[in-house]
């Protein structure tokens, strides 16, 4: 019970902190002090207290899009286990449920963007779904590898691995899957090198351009959902790259927190040391992620 409470609390409260960490790391690389660590929380509070401008051409889809997206992502967060602890919701085949919740979230984000009738948002939606065609299979194959290793179809068992640790022959596939998952994480959460969350240039945006017309509380919901997505995909990746456990509950929770913040710092470092890819080179990265996961699977069945 305590763990379920802890899971819910972390899921709802921690994500904006990751953005704070990323921004701090980026500021440090740029020789700046940067915004306070907790700035994303202030931003969310500010947005929640603002008014909203709704275009006359939009329909209910535009208003419901961000809310449905948020609901879908939170539900996905309840399915994904954190650290060595069980997820609040778990059943056989929940990995499919998890993947499709993320798909549902994307569907409503892009539909809300198309609903505005703006050529920019249509362009962003087209880019988003085009790149999703590559990230989604990569995620599926990654889950497939984990299912094959663990012999289970529930996320909790797949991700926790056997109590004795992963077998040695699983090392190579897991490394490949980790590489693939990291690229998926960067793409899905709109980070450099795929997308630039800080840009003000409409024509280069992917995710940001889809939400240009959203303002006030709805925009706050969108920012919060983006942070949640980063958190959830981060938990997934941590299982693969850092499956450490001590057996002590409080120590394991702290370990999870520290690992999560480190992961955010790594994302920040990646964003600081490289430029964005050309839009037409993004698929190369995503195909590489897909192949990396695919080879992991091949190694396993070979």
């Amino acid at each position, binding site marked *: 019970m305590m763990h379920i409470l802890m899971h819910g609390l972390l899921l709802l409260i921690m994500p904006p902190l990751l953005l704070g960490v990323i921004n701090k790391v*980026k500021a440090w*690389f*740029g*020789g*700046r002090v940067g915004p306070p660590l907790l700035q994303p929380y202030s931003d969310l509070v500010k947005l929640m207290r603002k008014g909203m401008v709704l275009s006359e051409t939009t329909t209910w889809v535009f208003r419901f899009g961000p809310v449905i997206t948020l609901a879908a992502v939170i539900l996905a967060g309840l399915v994904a286990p954190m650290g060595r602890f069980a997820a609040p919701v778990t059943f056989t085949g929940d990995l499919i449920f998890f993947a499709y919740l993320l798909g549902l979230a994307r569907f409503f984000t892009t539909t809300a963007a198309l609903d505005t009738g703006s*050529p*920019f948002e249509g*362009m962003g939606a*087209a880019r988003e779904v085009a790149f999703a065609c590559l990230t989604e299979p990569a995620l599926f194959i990654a889950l497939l590898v984990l299912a094959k290793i663990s012999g289970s179809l529930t996320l909790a068992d797949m991700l926790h691995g056997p109590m004795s640790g992963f077998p040695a022959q699983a090392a190579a596939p897991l490394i490949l899957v980790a590489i693939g998952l990291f690229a998926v994480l960067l793409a899905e959460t709109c980070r*450099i*090198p795929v997308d*630039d969350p*800080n*840009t*003000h*240039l*409409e*024509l*280069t945006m992917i995710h940001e351009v889809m939400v*240009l017309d959203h303002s006030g509380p709805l925009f706050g919901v969108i920012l919060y959902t983006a942070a949640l997505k980063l958190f959830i995909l981060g938990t997934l990746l941590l299982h693969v790259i850092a499956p450490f456990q001590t057996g002590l509950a409080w120590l394991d929770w702290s370990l999870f927190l520290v690992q999560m913040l480190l992961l955010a710092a790594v994302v920040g470092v990646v*964003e*600081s*040391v*490289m*430029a*964005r*890819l*050309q*839009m*037409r*080179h993004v698929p190369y990265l995503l195909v590489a992620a897909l192949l990396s996961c695919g080879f992991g699977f091949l190694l396993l069945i070979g």
Partner: protein
Amino acid sequence: MNRDREKMVTFTNGWSIDLDRVPTFTLDAFEWAILDAVDQGKRVVALFGVPTGQPEVTTLYVILAQDQENYLNAARTQIEGDRFPSLTPRCPQVHLFEREIAEQFGLVPGGHPWLKPVRSHRSWTGRDAWDRSPDQPILPGVSDFYRLGGDVHEVAVGPVHAGIIEPGHFRFQCHGEQVFHLEIALGYQHRGVEQAMRGGPHPRSIHYAETLAGDSTVAHATSYCQVIESLSHCQKTARAQTLRGVSLELERLANHVGDLGALANDVGFLPTASFCGRIRGDILNMTALLCGSRFGRGMIRPGGVGFDVDQARVTALLRQLDAAEKDAAVAVDLLWETPSVMSRFEGIGPLPRQVALDLGIVGPAARASGLSRDVRQDQPCGVFRFAHIPVSVYDTGDVFARAYIRWLEILQSMRFIRENLRAIPAGACQVPVGPLTPNGLVVALNEGWRGEVCHVAITDETGRFARYKIVDPSFHNWSALAYALRDQQISDFPLCNKSFNLSYCGHDL
């Protein structure tokens, strides 16, 4: 065709001549004179109309530059009625000048392939080249755009942008992510400076010149002051000329460093973006140390410069310059050493040499496409007659070339400032300016950081400006940006745009 080979008047940058010396050609000879000159490698610096006493007669002037032999040519012709044959099909570099004449004087350049208003204002003569009625509102950006049709879709960007930049409207013809054609509609910043300068010089004129394009304050103010000085035969001191040169190069440094940072920012490469933003501020502060204004306002004044320097200031400037150079080298080298940045810069938005030549491109954009074009070398005036700056040329014409040219010029400008500040001649910083010669013509060219800044003044019989023509480098170069985008990815537009970094208000005047 009967080719009338009359001679155009030859003169140099910054030297006034009697208006009578400019020959008046027949329209036919005028056209052939321009075509021949362009064939021989000369370039059209300005082509503009001047109203005469009679409403149905307009005089057209052309100013041509012979860059290899460092002289200028001028000729004029009279146009009666409301039409003249367009030269654009045979000489593309005059396309925007002809559109400008059509808009300002209501003269139709017959056969112009794309005759649209340039700045969307009413004509000066009451005639309208597009037969719009006087009560019909004229708004910038409201017009037909070139369309490809079929599956090609249009993306309209601006005039309101997501960032804090000047207003301009961009219309893309795209297929998916690929751009087939880009048309740029400007005019939102039109203030009517050329008309406001007529009847001058007024006490306000220098301020108009300084605010023509805020980031080229020194270049435009220097050109304006050269106009005044040469028309009043004022001999400025070597000290004033050196200080003007130093201010001009400081302006170039600040903008080039800022541009490199902005290019890094556009590809999401943060370290260089942040550092260059800061170094640009340091260099602006050096200009402020000279004259109290970070943008050089008040520095350049007719007869010399508004502020003198003492030894302590020179020492401080040199020290700050050393620090800025060291910091800039670290920040900018990071750009060239990062493969992910290079893959964004190389091969993007190429402008072939021949296209740059045909369109009459100037400044770093021309030099990045392999044209050795630099007013400081080709038409030197002021301190640049004595202190030469080697011209930096690169030949790929892409975003990388335009970025790298900036870096080469930064290094050259730093060396120039250091040498000239160390050996600054003694003397007064400003000398009094007398009244202007009546019936004179002067062309004052300067290499601003964006390229050639051109001011042409014609005085009437009382020594007031009868016509004041201004050509900002952006006027030439916007069409280069439109060309560079062809067959590029639409997501690379902001990067290409930044690599040219053209002025909207300099174009709109």
